[in-house]
Each structure stands twice: as structure tokens, then as C-alpha cells.
């Protein structure tokens, strides 16, 4: 640190905060001290301060507390204070336990090991190349060795066995560190680069395979230490003196980088990435002020400095393609902005269609952001806000502290993309099809909300959505989707029975049995198969075993349509009564009154299932009808080929 008195002042403030058990002040001053000083003594000082207020960190800042076990064949102890401080700065408190040096096989495989008994939330597996693929350096020495590939496969198989066996008996999340590519070898730089079986090339292949392996193991993330080393400089990453003397894996002056890399990796196992990036326009998405310079005057396109902004636009488009939602929050005239996107389309990397929603007006940005959160039904803690104005940034930081704020570097637009990619808030170890499709789904959601705000009555609003419900057999939903709905639906799920595929098939094939799925679309989009009901006849009654609906479509009368559909089929099969059951869980309160709301009468409790509430409806006395704003399609008795009724 430049200024010793400033350093002492921060240390004094940290001590005060610790004495007062003021977690937020301790972290704030700790962050300042560590940002300015990389002295190990300051790190140990902060680690010890943080550790002494660990309960306050979890209680006051809701830091995530993780029992963490380090399986290792390296010396990790001097790095632990760095791991502690970096974790606290990311709002984790690690209760660390370090395993025996090199006893990782027993620890991971023996059900009576110290590791198994520790019952960790998280384990780090930090092994040396010698442990993972010790023969590779020799086998690769000539750059053409034909046993290299076999050794890679063997190393992979050993690691797979280690991780899979561990996983079969333990649910702790796993961080597995890959191999570090040595900087210097006997083959030399040219040989390493050009020969297919050089150590460098072999280790790159091994690391790729190890990463793919980690991907197949649940809750396991691959920590690419080699990438980190390459970014910061391989030549300085390891101090051979200390590696050979003490098995210290990294040089003392990169302890904090190494610890930060570990934290960033394991974070993806515990924290969902943020979902929305809200960008300002003037001097952020493009250079200059649109209102002053007009659409032709703003800087964007292939020439400097417009290409700085074009880079940022492309970066946003890349985020969007893996499911990060983009929104505009800008103080501008909306018509001007639309004109700019039109006339400068050739110079812009984005169109307005790339944005899930826009708030282009003269309102406070914090209220625009609040509205966006509401319209998208997303928490503010999943938002990132990018703006060039320090005043706007500070206002958002103060009023909406959950939002991550990125201030565009003043007069240095070329730094914006680097600044953004250095952040961990969009980190994810996997991207699913659902993520990729998120933009369309949320666009539809935002439009529905906007319509709800403008439409008068609820019925009018629902009618304006043009909702179409299509009934299909649960076997053709397809069946895998039906089973997934049974497994995942919690809120609107009357009995929460997690039936298997074969059980669903039994409902479909039994006499008087029903296995109905419902598919829903409206003028904004197709929500897909979102509901399911299973029923079978018993005597004069049709018994509803399961009825559930994805929470995305609750409140539009679709549940009523599903019930009415069951009733209609029940009457056709000669049933007089429709009987329902509600089993309360921690999560399904939203459907607690479903049966009474539809005219069902509460029946007597049963000893065999004391939790359940039973209801019945006399089908000869009351008629169930679907809400009139729904258009119904399809007519599945199960014998009817459902493919005929699935709408395009």
C-alpha cells in the first residue's frame, strides 16, 4: 500500500468492527485493505478477524457457511488464510478441514474415513500431476510416444473411479482441480508446440477429458488451474524452490489469485448466476449522447472509438445467446432510440429484438429497475446494471443494493468488456436448453404483465391473452415430460406423488383410468406441456390421484379446465362422484383450497393417510365448466392417438 497510515487506519477500523461484531463494516474495511495490500500479514490479519466473527457473518450478512474438506497431495496450509478472506469477500464462510497429505485415495473411498465422518458440504480435490498421471512426463519426453494416449485414458479411468465412488456414498459438492502444464520441459518450446504427444498437448487433452468427466458427475466442477496460470503468467505461477522443498503448488505472490480462482469455481456450485443485464445507452451501449448528437452522431461501428461499443454490443449478444436476458434502462425519448436502432442498424451489434424489455423514459432508474424485476418476475438480486454515470450508479447502489453495478470506465470504453468478463456474476458450469430459450419465454412474460397492467378486469385480461389449452395423453406429452412434471412440480401439486413412468402408464391403461396432460399456448408464446392429472375409477367414483400445474401458468383458469376435463371423462365412464385428495406440504399452499373452490365437499378423514384431506363432488348435482376465456382443443381418451391432437 502506498500509504502506511492509511493501512494502519483500515486495520484499526477492522479491529473496531470485530470488537463490535459489525460484520458488514469488517468486510467493507477488509475489502479495502486487501484491495490495496497483498502483504501476507494483512491477509492473515483479515482472515483471523473474519474467523473471529464467523457467526456474525452468517447471521448479519447471510454468508453461506460451508463445511469444507480439502483432499490434497500438495501443501495448502499457507494458502488457507487467503482462501478464508477471498471466500468471505464473496460471502462464504468456510469451516475448513485439511485432509492428510497424500491420503486422498483412502479419504475418498473409505466410508469410515475422516472425510466421510466430517460430512462436508464441499470438498476440494487438489492433486499434483504425479498423482493424476505421474507417468506422462516420461512418456511424452520424445513427443511421439505411442503409449501416451493409453496413459491419458488410464488416468481418466482412475479419476473417474475416484470421483464416482466418492459420489455414490457422499453428496458433498466437489471441486476437482485439473493439471498444471509445466512451463519448461526437455522437449523445449518448439517441440512442445509441434509434437502431437508432447507433454503440453497431452495435458491439454487430459484436462479436457477431466472437465468432461466432472460434467458427468452431479454437483462437481472442474477447476482449470492451468488457465489461471496461463492468464497470470506461467513463469511466475510456481516457485520451484518452494514446490520442491515444501510441495507448495503456487508461488507466494499468487496465493490470492489462486484462492480467488478456487472461490470463483466453487461458487457456481452454490449460487445461481445473475439473469439480467440492464444497460444504459448513451456513452455505454454507444458513444455520445443521442439526444444531442442525433442517430448519425453516436459512436458505434467498425471504426475507433465506435468499435469499443460494438465490442460491448457483441459481448451482450453472446451473453444473450446463453440465456442472460438483456434490458435497456435509459433516460431518452423512446422514439429517438427506435430511430437510432433503425438508421444505425448496420453499425450496431444488437437490435431491439435482442432485449427482453426496455425502460426508455425519464423516470428514476431505480424505479425502472424495480418495474423490470416485477414484469419479469425476477428478484433484483439477479440483476446487473451497467451505466456510465457515477451518479446513476451510486443511486442504484444505495437504493437497490441487491443489484450488481458496473460503472463504465470514464473515457476508456475499451475497458468495459474486460471489466464485465472479470466479474463472476454470470458464471455457470452448465447451460441448458431452457437457458437458451429463456429470452422468448421472458419476453412473453413481460408482454403479459404489460397487458395485465393496461387491461381492465382480470377476465378481460385473460381473454385478451387468447389462451389455448390442448389435452393430450400423458404418454404422449411425451411421457418423459409427464414424469418430469411429477418429479419437479411443488407449488400447485395436490398430492406431490412422484410417480414413475411405468406408474403413469398404469393409469393410462387401466379401465376408466385417465392420464391427461395439458399443453398451453397464448398469443405471446407456447408454454409447452405444463399440467398433468392422473385418475382411475373405483366403484361409482373417479378418484383423482394426482393433479398438478407448473407455477408459470397458475391463475389463468387452466387448473379449472383440467379438473372439468377429468369430470367430463369421469361422467363418460359412468362415474357418479369425483373424489379428490389434498396432501399438504411445505410448498403447496397455493392449491390448498382448490377442491373447495370448485364446489367439492370435504369428506371424512382416513386413518391410513392422516395427512390427507379428502373431498368429493356429486357429478349428477353439479357441473364443472372451463373458464370461458380458454379455448380447448384435443380430446384424449388414451386410446385416441394423441399425436393427432397435438397442435403445431
Amino acid at each position, binding site marked *: 500500500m502506498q500509504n502506511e497510515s492509511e493501512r494502519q487506519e483500515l486495520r484499526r477500523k477492522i479491529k473496531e468492527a470485530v470488537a463490535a461484531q459489525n460484520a458488514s463494516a469488517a468486510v467493507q474495511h477488509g475489502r479495502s485493505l486487501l484491495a490495496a495490500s497483498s*502483504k*501476507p*500479514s*494483512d491477509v*492473515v*490479519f483479515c482472515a*483471523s478477524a473474519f474467523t473471529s466473527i464467523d457467526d456474525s457473518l452468517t447471521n448479519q450478512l447471510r454468508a453461506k457457511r460451508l463445511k469444507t474438506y480439502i483432499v490434497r497431495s500438495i*501443501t495448502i*496450509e*499457507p494458502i488457507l*488464510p487467503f482462501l478464508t478472506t477471498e471466500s468471505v469477500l464473496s460471502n462464504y464462510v468456510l469451516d475448513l478441514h485439511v485432509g492428510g497429505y497424500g491420503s486422498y485415495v483412502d479419504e475418498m473411498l473409505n466410508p469410515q474415513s475422516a472425510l466421510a465422518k466430517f460430512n462436508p458440504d464441499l470438498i476440494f480435490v487438489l492433486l499434483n500431476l504425479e498423482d493424476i498421471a505421474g507417468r506422462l512426463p516420461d512418456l511424452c519426453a520424445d513427443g511421439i510416444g505411442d503409449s501416451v494416449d493409453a496413459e491419458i485414458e488410464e488416468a481418466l479411468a482412475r479419476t473417474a473411479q475416484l470421483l464416482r465412488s466418492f459420489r455414490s456414498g457422499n453428496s458433498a459438492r466437489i471441486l476437482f482441480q485439473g493439471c498444471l502444464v509445466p512451463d519448461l520441459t526437455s522437449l523445449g518450446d518448439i517441440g512442445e508446440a509441434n509434437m502431437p504427444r508432447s507433454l503440453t498437448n497431452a495435458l491439454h487433452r487430459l484436462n479436457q477429458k477431466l472437465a468432461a468427466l466432472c460434467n458427468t458427475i452431479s454437483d462437481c466442477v472442474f477447476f482449470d488451474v492451468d488457465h489461471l496460470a496461463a492468464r497470470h503468467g506461467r513463469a511466475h505461477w510456481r516457485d520451484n*524452490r*518452494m514446490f*520442491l*522443498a*515444501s510441495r*507448495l503448488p503456487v508461488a*507466494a*505472490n499468487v496465493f490470492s489469485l489462486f484462492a480467488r480462482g478456487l472461490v470463483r469455481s466453487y461458487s457456481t456450485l452454490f449460487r445461481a448466476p445473475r439473469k439480467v443485464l440492464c444497460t444504459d445507452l448513451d456513452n455505454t451501449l454507444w458513444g455520445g449522447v443521442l439526444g444531442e448528437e442525433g442517430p448519425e452522431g453516436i459512436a458505434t461501428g467498425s471504426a475507433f472509438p465506435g468499435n469499443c461499443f460494438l465490442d460491448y454490443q457483441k459481448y451482450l449478444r453472446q451473453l444473450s445467446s446463453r440465456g442472460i436476458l438483456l434490458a435497456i434502462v435509459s433516460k431518452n425519448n423512446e422514439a429517438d432510440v427506435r430511430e437510432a436502432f433503425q438508421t444505425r442498424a448496420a453499425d450496431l451489434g444488437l437490435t431491439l429484438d435482442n432485449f427482453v424489455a426496455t425502460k426508455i423514459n425519464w423516470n428514476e432508474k431505480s424505479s425502472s429497475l424495480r418495474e423490470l424485476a416485477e414484469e419479469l418476475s425476477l428478484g433484483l438480486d439477479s440483476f446487473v446494471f451497467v451505466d456510465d454515470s457515477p451518479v446513476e450508479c451510486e443511486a442504484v447502489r444505495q437504493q437497490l443494493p441487491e443489484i450488481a453495478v458496473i460503472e463504465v470506465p470514464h473515457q476508456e470504453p475499451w475497458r468495459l468488456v474486460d471489466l464485465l468478463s472479470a466479474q463472476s456474476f454470470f458464471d455457470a458450469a452448465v447451460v441448458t436448453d431452457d437457458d437458451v430459450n429463456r429470452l422468448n419465454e421472458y419476453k412473453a412474460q413481460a408482454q403479459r404483465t404489460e397487458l395485465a397492467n393496461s387491461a381492465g378486469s382480470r377476465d378481460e385480461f385473460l381473454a385478451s391473452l387468447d389462451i389455448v389449452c390442448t389435452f393430450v395423453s400423458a404418454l404422449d406429452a411425451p411421457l418423459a415430460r409427464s414424469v418430469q412434471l411429477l418429479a419437479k412440480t411443488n407449488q400447485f401439486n395436490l398430492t406431490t406423488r412422484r410417480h414413475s413412468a411405468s406408474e403413469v402408464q398404469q393409469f393410462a391403461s387401466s379401465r376408466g383410468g385417465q392420464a391427461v396432460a395439458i399443453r398451453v399456448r397464448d398469443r405471446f408464446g407456447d408454454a409447452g406441456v405444463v399440467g398433468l392429472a392422473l385418475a382411475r375409477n373405483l366403484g361409482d367414483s373417479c378418484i383423482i390421484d394426482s393433479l398438478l400445474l407448473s407455477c408459470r401458468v397458475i391463475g389463468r383458469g387452466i387448473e379449472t379446465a383440467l379438473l372439468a376435463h377429468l369430470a367430463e371423462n369421469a361422467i363418460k365412464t359412468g362415474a357418479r362422484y369425483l373424489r379428490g385428495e389434498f396432501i399438504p406440504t411445505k410448498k403447496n399452499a397455493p392449491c390448498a383450497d382448490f377442491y373447495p373452490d370448485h364446489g367439492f365437499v370435504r369428506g371424512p378423514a382416513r386413518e391410513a393417510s392422516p395427512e390427507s384431506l379428502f373431498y368429493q363432488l356429486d357429478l349428477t348435482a353439479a357441473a364443472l365448466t372451463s373458464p370461458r376465456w380458454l379455448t380447448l382443443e384435443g380430446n384424449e381418451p388414451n386410446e385416441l392417438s394423441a399425436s393427432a391432437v397435438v397442435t403445431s
Partner: protein
Amino acid sequence: MNRMSSQQVPSSLRDILADILEISPEEVTPETGVGTIENWDSFRHLQAILAIEGEYGVQFDPSRIAELTTVSLIQAELAAKGAAL
């Protein structure tokens, strides 16, 4: 025999050791060492050595590191390396 005082240890060295060993700077005297401070185990020792190397821009010979078991021995080794204390 007079007890040695922390005043006899250069303040920069004293402060580093106090931080790493989690003791107060006054407790760091020339004769403080592996045997006198409970916290001073082999890992704190390695940590202290690394911190001291970083602070003074020196590198100790690994085979000597284990022998630097008291403050005065560390101080002497630093002086031999020409570190400005």
C-alpha cells in the same frame, strides 16, 4: 537475566510475525521462537518465512528455512542476505 524486549526487534519484522502468529507485537522478542509460542507450528513457520521473504525481497535457502526457529536467527539470516531491516 534481563528479559529481552520487543523493542529489540525491528518493527517491520515484529509486526509481520505478530500478524502471522496471531500474537501482540509486544510478545515478539529476539528469543521468541518455535518453542516459546504455541501457534508457531511448521505451517505458521512456512507462512512467516514466505511473508518475510516477500516483505524484504529476499529468498532463503530451503535447507536453512527449518533452522530459522527464533526471531534472532531470522534476523541474523536477513542481515546476512543484506536485507534493510
